[in-house]
């Protein structure tokens, strides 16, 4: 069974783990907006990353969160990890 990680999953986890800044609408098109601009600093991303790892059974490298600066990039990376896990 292959599981997919979507932008909606990411939004839900961002909200649960770190909330949302006032003045940031997560329902607008945020796919290519830098996390920093969305109000998520490194600690918020660490919390978000930890939640994704727990829930989806994937494991991030130390650099995963630093290198994937936008929701689109992070969603793609998580899906690549999920695919790898299924492929094994």
């Amino acid at each position: 069974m292959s599981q997919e990680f979507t932008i909606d999953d990411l939004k839900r986890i961002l909200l649960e783990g770190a909330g949302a800044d006032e003045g940031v609408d997560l329902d607008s098109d945020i796919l290519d907006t830098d996390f920093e601009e969305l109000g998520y600093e490194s600690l918020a991303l660490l919390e978000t990353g930890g939640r994704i790892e727990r829930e989806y059974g994937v494991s991030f490298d130390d650099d995963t969160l630093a290198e994937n600066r936008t929701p689109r990039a992070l969603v793609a990376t998580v899906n690549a990890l999920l695919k790898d896990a299924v492929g094994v």
Partner: protein
Amino acid sequence: MTAKVVITGIGVATPNGLGVDDYWAATRVGKNAIGPVTRFDAAQYPSKLAGEIHDFTAEDHLPSRLIPQTDRMTRLALVAADCAFEDAGVKPGDIPEFDMGVVTASASGGFEFGQNELKKLWGQGSQYVSAYQSFAWFYAVNSGQISIRNGMRGPSGVVVSDQAGGLDAIAQARRQIRKGSKLIFSGGFDASICPWGWVAQLAGGLMSTDENPERAYLPFDPDANGYVPGEGGALLILEDAEAARGRGATNIYGEIAGYGATFDPKPGSGREPGLRRAIEAALADAGLEAGDIDVVFADAAGTPELDRIEADAISAVFGPGRVPVTAPKTMTGRLYSGAAPVDVVAAVLAMREGLIPPTTNVTLSPEYDIDLVTGTARPAPVRAALVLARGYGGFNSAVVVRAAD
């Protein structure tokens, strides 16, 4: 430099009320806010009563970004900070960011947050621990979060000296203003009514085990048998008096006129406890005589030995029965770092109204020769008040608050 430092804004959250008006409306009439613990099941513990803040929903006041990263005490402190700004008629951006700082006291940090993360650590594994545990439990977190939220980048810090810390923070804030800061937030909040906080306090051996909310916390009473803990505290905006008048501040509650702090001698040394010296130091710092003080807000530990030490110190400085003494914290329980800032609030409101709030439920023991204001509030002109606070392990602090002219 000895600039006058005045209180120009107040944010208060206690079991007796949220905001100055609520708190005072309850306090002036002696409304009891001690009751059975509801925040967790205390049935299995020897102490079952607390002063809890009900009807506080952080989500109504704070952005969602702050909720996952804050302990209850920090949420209370942040909301109180917002109230204090509003009360002072000043907005964070009105004053240059490096001219504003935050000095708070904390006795236990974010215990409840820490407890939840420890539960996850041992129950589910380290990967379940929140990244925010790195700071959410920490003593300095209230100062940090207030500073970040309001862009206050001047001198800031935290003092940790249990209940005395609430006064020590005010003294440190006064120092920073005298060194040139324009505005410093000061005060303290604690909120550790959770099992971990409970057992930590029980270990001190001073908590009351009485289950009657009206008989559990009775400082200076023949039946004194310990204290009841509470949650909450107060934040004060302190400013240089001239700067405050310069910006047109309208709410000048009073002046932080004097401060003294001492440490008790080693137990068994036979030397006198340090509280009397702290009072004398605070009076000297304020340039006042004992006769100038119109009311003393007692630390009111609620155990016979500590009550004896406090009554003796007050009688030694002021003379037996020569100054009204009160402990409105009998309504809320002891708020640790939050207690003394709340007493400072009560002191300036007593000045404003000419009314000394009562020590509730207590019948004064004939052992103590102090003029304890029991029963109902006592009308009296109040121009200068002394606030006392002691911390577990030997801290003694005293602050003199004087009416602003």
